[in-house]
């Protein structure tokens, strides 16, 4: 067995060096073709009719007029008469036509009659949830009642974090060509290798007959794993239209209504402590929704998992709204917000610096040795000791405040296979059935290959985004870089060994005496004996080398691992006259393993921080209790942060020899976790009172200042 290991830190030429995005220019010149940009010959446009009601029974549906509209090639009913729809935006029927306008015209000719049924769309008041509330059993650890009785101090408060939607800029959708018994699929997916099988199940076509191609994806964030009903519909419409490809993408409103969301979380929380800040008991009564499926309990108390006395109750609330999907660190941002908010309130009650209270209780976490120095590092960057003040202190109407939060995440590496081909002319091709979500996956794979083969980045041709390539896992759970890096390392190492065997006689050496360095194959102990890469490859005669490499998540082999912690701090200014919160500075100190590309790793953390700023200050799905409608299903009123809203962001990655030994871990999610909590705590510190529910909009801030918390 070859030695599959990362080269020592000080000997790396490529890995660990800040490197520009390999496909950057493709994107910034508009040449990058996303699936939604493709136009295979003969392509038709699909359109989707959705329910205007949150809960209704379809009493009749008539597609006759639609079928006779000009340009229409197929109409399909998804929800037949007699069936119920459970949320606004639920799929009713689809149309394919030669033009987009014709497809939408035909959609308007479908006559649907509904019997409107009662709905529940708002979950923030558990008392109004009635039979939509499904409580889970109580969990008790230790003796919380006794601990609360004996406590020196206690806080009790209610907090809430709403449903937010992924709002991928490229909406969910596919182009599907279903011709004979074969399917060509151009999806927008986080799962190039797996999505064909998913579509095939619904359309009863073997995955072997499905060809998936996707070079670029315009955002996924956990919501784009499945072929989805609209993918299946595009297939059915294609088949019914003589096998012409059908493009079916959701419009923006439908995207926000049905293409996934992050469940809400609300909780009444009691925390008790000794005078010195040592936590003695936790009790939470939480509830959440992720649509008709309810919503699970976030992992409470977050990170401080070993508090000795704990009582947990949780209720899932089913509401008539589109269903949840995985959202960048599922359930962790909610848990972090609920926990870190309560702990900051506890610190304020005890008149302690929250940094001191968090530090004091790190023994209750699984990663004290990680968090302790991280808290110190973040505090140093934020100048916490100098700048933190007790709650609400400060002069003038604009108050400044600091807040903190902590995170934890798994990460690791998904199953991945890579094929390396070395041709006799010296050209090198890598193939992996993976996808680059914007992480910089292409860049990471190319860097690992260049490192192993001793070649410049430009000498490597990388092919991804095609189901014909060796399979790679779905990009979820921060596992992509941890998956593709080991498979690439192994595959290129295997190919190089074959090349060494072919070249060794010419250099009067044995294969194990050879090394690939700076575009040459040379004898390790006698670098004067060497061949340029291309001359070496000519020794292959007419036979190319083709070698596989695999990452098996169960056998990490020191190349990747799981489990990180991180600390985040926010500095805000709050105008107490207008209620407007302004980000001054955000600090993320993140535990990591081996970092392939620090430049893009840092970008990923910037992105996570900004996504958290969106969630802390702006984002919220607003449902109307009366009509059951999603009121802000557009991008004007479903607000995201803009370029002027984010303040300064400082990233500190814990790149150390010790962490490097853990191999690649993955960074996409952990830094997205604690942002909302840190900003909420900074606002409480600034204005002297807790704004109990996020986002921290001006009305909520003003209400909190007037003692009218939601």
């Amino acid at each position, binding site marked *: 067995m070859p030695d599959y290991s990362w080269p020592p830190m000080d000997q790396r030429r490529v890995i660990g060096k800040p490197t520009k995005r390999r496909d950057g220019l493709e994107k*910034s*010149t508009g040449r990058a073709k996303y699936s939604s940009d493709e136009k295979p010959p003969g392509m038709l446009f699909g359109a989707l009719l959705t329910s205007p009601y949150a809960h209704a029974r379809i009493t009749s549906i008539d597609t006759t007029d639609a079928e006779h509209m000009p340009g229409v090639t197929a109409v399909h009913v998804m929800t037949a008469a007699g069936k119920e729809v459970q949320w606004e935006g639920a799929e009713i029927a689809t149309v394919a036509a030669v033009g987009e306008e014709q497809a939408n015209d035909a959609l308007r000719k479908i006559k649907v009659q509904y019997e409107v049924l009662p709905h529940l769309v708002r979950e923030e008041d558990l008392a109004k949830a009635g039979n939509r509330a499904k409580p889970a059993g109580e969990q008790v650890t230790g003796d919380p009642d006794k601990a609360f009785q004996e406590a020196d101090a206690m806080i009790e408060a209610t907090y809430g974090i709403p449903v937010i939607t992924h709002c991928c800029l490229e909406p969910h959708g596919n182009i599907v060509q279903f011709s004979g018994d074969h399917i060509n699929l151009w999806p927008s997916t986080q799962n190039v290798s797996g999505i064909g099988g998913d579509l095939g199940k619904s359309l009863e076509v073997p995955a072997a007959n499905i060809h998936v191609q996707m070079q670029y994806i315009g955002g996924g964030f956990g919501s784009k794993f499945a072929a989805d009903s609209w993918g299946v519909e595009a297939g059915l419409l294609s088949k019914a239209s003589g096998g012409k490809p059908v493009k079916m993408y959701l419009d923006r409103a439908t995207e926000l209504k049905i293409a996934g969301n992050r469940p809400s979380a609300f909780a009444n929380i009691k925390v008790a402590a000794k005078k010195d800040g040592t936590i003695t008991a936790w009790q939470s009564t939480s509830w959440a929704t992720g649509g008709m499926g309810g919503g699970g309990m976030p992992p409470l108390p977050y990170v401080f998992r070993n508090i000795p006395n704990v009582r947990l109750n949780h209720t899932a609330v089913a509401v008539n709204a589109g269903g949840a999907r995985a959202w960048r660190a599922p359930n962790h941002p909610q848990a972090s917000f609920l926990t870190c908010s309560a702990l900051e309130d506890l610190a304020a009650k005890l008149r302690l610096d929250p940094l001191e209270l968090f530090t004091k209780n790190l023994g209750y976490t699984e990663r004290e040795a990680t968090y302790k120095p991280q808290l110190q590092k973040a505090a140093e960057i934020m100048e916490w000791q100098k700048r933190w003040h007790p709650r609400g202190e400060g002069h003038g109407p604009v108050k400044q405040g600091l807040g903190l939060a902590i995170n934890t995440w798994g990460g690791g590496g998904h199953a991945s296979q890579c094929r390396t081909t070395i041709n006799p002319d010296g050209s090198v091709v890598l193939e992996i059935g993976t996808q680059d979500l914007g992480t910089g996956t292409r860049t990471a794979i190319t860097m690992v290959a260049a490192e192993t083969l001793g070649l410049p980045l430009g000498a490597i041709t990388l092919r991804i985004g095609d189901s014909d390539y060796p399979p790679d896992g779905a990009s979820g759970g921060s596992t992509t870089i941890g998956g593709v890096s080991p498979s690439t390392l192994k595959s290129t190492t295997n190919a190089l060994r074959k090349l060494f065997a072919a070249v060794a006689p010419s250099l009067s050496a044995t294969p194990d005496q050879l090394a690939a360095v700076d575009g040459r194959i040379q004898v390790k102990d006698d670098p004067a004996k060497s061949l340029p890469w291309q001359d070496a490859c000519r020794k292959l005669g007419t036979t190319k080398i083709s070698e596989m490499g695999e990452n098996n998540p169960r056998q990490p082999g020191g190349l990747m691992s799981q489990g990180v912690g991180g600390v985040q701090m926010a500095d805000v200014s709050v105008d107490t006259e207008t209620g407007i919160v302004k980000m001054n500075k955000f600090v993320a100190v993140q535990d990591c393993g081996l970092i392939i590309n620090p430049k893009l790793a840092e970008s990923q953390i910037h992105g996570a921080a900004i996504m958290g700023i969106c969630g802390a200050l702006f984002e919220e799905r607003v449902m109307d209790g009366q009509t059951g409608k999603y009121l802000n299903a557009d991008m*004007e009123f479903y607000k995201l942060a803009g370029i002027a809203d984010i303040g300064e962001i400082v990233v500190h990655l814990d790149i150390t020899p010790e962490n490097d030994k853990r191999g690649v871990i993955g960074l996409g999610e952990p830094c997205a976790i604690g942002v909302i909590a840190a900003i909420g705590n900074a606002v409480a510190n600034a204005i002297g009172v807790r704004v109990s529910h996020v986002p921290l909009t001006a009305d909520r801030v003003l209400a909190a200042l007037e003692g009218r918390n939601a």
Partner: protein
Amino acid sequence: MSSKNDSEVPGKPNRGVSRRGFIRRAGIGGSVLGAGLLDKKALAAPAAGGKFVGPGAVPITLKINAKAQTLNLEPRVTLLDALRNDLELTGAKRVCDRATCGACTVILNGKSVYSCTVLAIDAQGKDIVTIEGISSGKPHPVSKAFVNCDGQQCGYCTPGFVMAAKAFLDRNPDPTYEEVKEGLCGNLCRCGTYVGVRQAVLEAAKEMKGGNHA
């Protein structure tokens, strides 16, 4: 690096204030503003010269990237849809489809516009520049700066940002950091690339001043 504040210099051209930014500062409702933004001439008369067109397809000639192209389009077709569906110029993206996010930004007679909210028929006789138009030869300094500063992740908002940045820098070649934040606030990114975008626009400004681009 100049850090002068030019905002009070008389005669300084419009500094690329976006609709979103304007709404934010004006602090008034979208519906009120919406009426104000409608072309007054369009309200006054159904079509230029009293001639009715449509609803069927009509010949529409668009001057895109200095090349005139005639299409047969219904008058209701937006410039964005004409670019994407009929001309396969897919750099401009359809995201919000309601003039909020800027992913569809193109430059019309030197001004950045949301092409999702311009009818193709109304763009006749105007100079339309798309991302493809500034990317046919060597990459534009703005495109290069977005790579150097990593002002992109998934990249779906990027062509719109690049076009908005180009139009902004054409009007304001020497912007301050604060002006960049103001000038680019009509575009939205979901991956969170604004840190890189801010740096990229400043780097591109430097590069363009250096005369490295025609």
